[in-house]
């Protein structure tokens, strides 16, 4: 039965067949193109995840977030028992977004066309920052402060969902992000 037979020849000395040779060359070239696309996009593309991250303590991070909220809060939203402050930070500034069981805090209001340094960190378990309908998805860890510089393009009301499973109320972890002119 062919399943258990091998040729007499040592396998690495067998000849290469033409169909295979041509395909290997084509596939290898394609693999190299895919490889070079990533450095290329770092140089010429607009969408690259930041390499900027720091180890941080949840308490310190929360303190910085509260300072920004105190300075730049414009209003509150949500039902009475779950009021969330809305922060409108100046363009180009540092903004802190807390992920915790099971909410995003605070809510952000950004200006279209301006850049912001958004600091992301979790207070407890892993969370997933998922901005809809843009569909930008970033992992949020406890103890790692991730600084992502974003430039919103179009005004509108966006949603931030959690897309890393974080326990039984994971699906309730949703917030908004406003982009204004």
């Amino acid at each position: 039965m062919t399943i258990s037979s091998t040729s007499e020849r040592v396998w690495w000395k067998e000849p290469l067949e033409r169909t295979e040779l041509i395909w290997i060359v084509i596939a290898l070239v394609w693999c190299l193109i895919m490889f070079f696309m990533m450095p290329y996009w770092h140089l010429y593309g607009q969408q690259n995840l930041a390499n900027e991250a720091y180890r941080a303590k949840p308490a310190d991070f929360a303190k910085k977030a509260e300072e920004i909220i105190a300075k730049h809060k414009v209003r509150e939203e949500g039902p009475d028992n779950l009021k969330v402050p809305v922060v409108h930070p100046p363009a180009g500034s540092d903004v802190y977004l807390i992920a915790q069981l099971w909410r995003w805090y605070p809510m952000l209001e950004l200006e279209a066309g301006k850049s912001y340094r958004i600091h992301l960190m979790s207070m407890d378990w892993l969370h997933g920052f998922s901005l809809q309908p843009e569909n930008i998805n970033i992992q949020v860890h406890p103890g790692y402060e991730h600084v992502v510089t974003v430039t919103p393009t179009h005004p509108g009301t966006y949603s931030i969902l959690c897309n890393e499973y974080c326990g039984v109320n994971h699906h309730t972890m949703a917030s908004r992000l406003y982009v204004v002119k």
Partner: protein
Amino acid sequence: MPVNRMFRTDPATGLVFHEPADKLMRWNAVAAVVSLLIGGLLAIGVVLTRWQAVHLLPPDRFYQVLTAHGINMLIFWIIFFEIAVLYFAASTLLKCRLATPAMGWAGFWLMVVGALVNNYSVFRGDSSVMFTSYAPMGAHPTFYLGLILFAVGALVACFVFFGTLVVARAERTYRNSVPLVTFGAITAAIIAVFTIAAGAIILIPTFLWSVGLVNYIDSLMYKTVWWAFGHSSQQVNVAAHVSVWYAIAAIVFGAKPMSEKVSRSAFLLYIFFLQLASAHHLLADPGLTSNWKIFNTSYAMYLAVLASMVHGLTVPGSIEVAQRKKGYTQGLFEWLRKAPWGNPCFSAMFISLVGFGFLGGISGVMMGTEQLNLIIHNTIYVPGHFHATVVIGTTLAFMGLTYFLIPVLFRRELAFPTMAKYQPYVFGLAMGGVALFLMGAGTLGVPRRHWDIGFAGNAFPYEFPGAAWLMMALAGISGLIAIVGGGMYLLITVWSVFLGKKIQTPGFQHVRARDGMAPRVVPAAGPVIAGHGSAGMIAPGTFALAMVFLVSFVLYYFVNWKYLSTVWPLK
């Protein structure tokens, strides 16, 4: 120590089974099918909950069922089956006695106990932590303990496999090199060893943390090391199901690889580079540099992708060559049209190959690209992708092999042959639907592992577009059909094994081999290139199909770059 050297020869295929190995294969296969049954029942809960119009289970139950579904399918079903394949590849294909059957049983029972303990912890209700169990979210200690016991059992089985290779060489039961299928199984076993080592490195401290002996587990460290276990175990599956593809090509068509050099070198690339691909689970994570991400997931990973692209050509290519030798030489595709599409062994293997390549492979490489991962990470696109790789790829290939093993290994006739004829189509095509619709919903941002994308009662709900809801409903319907297809497989398998008609063969006999099996004389290999092809190629039809694959791949890859370029600038 007395050594059991009793063998039986299967009269239909001429395959030689060592009795203790034969029994271990059967028990591992049965444990695999039982796990598939449990995982399949749980799939009903998952499918009917994520189909929002039905929304069957409450949230706590849903997350629990999803956890158990993932672990039973991805770990227990597949690894039990793989152990059976390893013993087959070492003992049967090399016509060799199994080394230390007692250790084989010790490994088997450790795996059984591990699987039971882990399932116990999940069904207790306090370990709904998903397959990934990301710390610092903690499970009950028995959750980690069960996985550790299972992994140790699997490791023992791998070493019984390696031991058998040593015995085979010492007792000269084969000549020349080991057969290609065994070579692929060795690849799978080597990857399994470092996979299990990574699992031990992360699960043992996490177990100690869960009982209070270690006070801190870093989330990024956990995720990094866990994926060296979690993704690599899927690479074991790839190596195993590619071996099964070659095995089925040989069984059904008498196909020989176009060149052993190419196929075996491709397996070697898996050993060298697959492990690094685990890093593509960390592309959206902080604290790791782009250089690290790009090196691990591309430079090295693409050499593993290259290997899969090579297997994707050489497996159907070997079938084409075998068919052309039989006289199916008309045009580019007569060899394929005249293939035995009614033989479930073949149809399962072919759907597995096409689904793995077109749906699973292309989407996997796209997701594993550093920047493109941003628009896909943790969306339901990811389950869409791995239902194409692990379910259509691995599970369907194993189902195809089962149809061969029932008469050979269990010595029973296949029950419900007509149902078996259709089963790969029902299961494979429906699962293709699941994969495609989930990927479609994922590109619209639908999160994975999420109980309610309707956000009922939420203060800040997000309204997903209608297309996303439609995709999830279609995925639900496809999922139900796939569950029916899986049920058909279970019915056929269980019925055949326990109630099927026994195959009585007059020539059946046990053979005692005092010094291992005498090597059979292998007929000298004919010229590899037989001149049945056209355009200077022995497999022009396969090459044409490969070009279709390449064009789809290139188009889809760049469509996603285009899509990425429209989202908010980030740096």
